[in-house]
């Protein structure tokens, strides 16, 4: 986890990191939204279908198994506008780990889940897919540090 004192430093570092790991980047960010004319199952299966030419049925089965980890099968056939913020974050996180050899970058998660009730939310989310990424980094600001209780990534204040 990298904590930045200012927005412009964060965005510059994010751009560099994204470019460096372009081929295996799994970006979770507010400005990388889910595709609105596909349901969640379609959004997530698309990654495997396009990048690995996995047949639709296999890709969807894999996505459903990941949704089950979060107990979120209910969102499979919903579209982006009909999701709660927590469900949207979960879908975006799964989409990121579906990238082969995923280098997961989570950009200011509180922008996606602004009204977070539980400080352990990110811990609970990340531990469920910890085995699926090759590395994971969160970009945020120092004043949000307390919102990341027990997260399974190193914290690095810049």
């Amino acid at each position: 986890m990298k904590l930045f004192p200012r927005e412009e430093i964060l965005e510059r570092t994010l751009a560099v990191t994204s470019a460096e790991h372009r081929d295996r980047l799994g970006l979770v960010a507010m400005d990388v939204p889910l595709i609105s004319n596909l349901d969640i199952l379609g959004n997530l299966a698309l990654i495997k279908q396009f990048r690995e030419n996995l047949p639709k049925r296999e890709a969807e089965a894999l996505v459903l198994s990941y949704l089950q980890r979060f107990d979120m099968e209910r969102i499979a056939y919903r579209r982006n506008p009909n999701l709660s913020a927590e469900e949207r974050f979960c879908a975006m996180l799964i989409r990121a780990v579906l990238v082969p050899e995923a280098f997961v970058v989570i950009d200011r998660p509180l922008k996606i889940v602004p009204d977070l009730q539980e400080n352990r939310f990110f811990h609970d989310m990340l531990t469920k897919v910890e085995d699926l990424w090759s590395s994971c980094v969160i970009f945020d600001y120092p004043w949000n540090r307390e919102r990341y209780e027990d997260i399974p990534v190193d914290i690095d204040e810049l």
Partner: protein
Amino acid sequence: MMYATIERIGETSIRTARSFYETLAFSSLVFFKMFDRTSYNSAMRMVLVNQIYFTSVQVLPLFIAVSILFGSPMVGITLQVLKHFGLADRMGSVLMGFIVTELSPFMTVLLIALRSSSAINAEIAVMKVNRELKTLDVFGIDVLDYLFLPRIINGILSIVCLSSLFSILALASGALFSRFLFDLGINEYTNLLFLSADFSDLFILLVKCILLGFFITLIPIRFGLRATDELTSIPVSVLNGMVKVFIAIVIIEVLSLLLRFL
């Protein structure tokens, strides 16, 4: 005053020429992608099937109704006029030359352009405004393969197939009218059509349908991509795109007429 007018004409000409060149450059890019086997992955095939369903299958009841309601009276009136002027022997060439090669593709492209081209234009513009194209790029999904190619291939298939269907329905109603007006049996009618069918005309018809299908999907995609980050740019991009689609239809129709009659 004079200078300003010349300047404006020059600017417009340069802008038009540039737009025309960009369209052709984009067309060649898409054309070569069509023959690249790697473009046809699982996701692309799924989109292609969906597009064919939305464009060709979903519209079938309406299209068949329009073909019968518009095509049949058209054929009936044409045959009535031929009978009136004592030109019954020209029936085959008129049906093949007018109904099949001109009316069918025109009616088909009109319906598909009004229904699908505008939808494609709006869809791409909305995706651009919502930053969804950026999402596809970030996740390594080639928009040309995933978004554009299925829509363009579907455009070509839809125009070719629906145009053929319109022709079949119009000629079938022609069989009925020829029975009543000229007392022609079905075999005689069919023979007459076959004898009147000119291979070069049918080839031009096929090429025309392919070009129409290609450009009435490619142009809306290009104009959808021109949308900015603002919602208000969506109607503007659709408006401009649909005007260019109309111009493309007119150009292709005129070129096909020139090819046939020169």
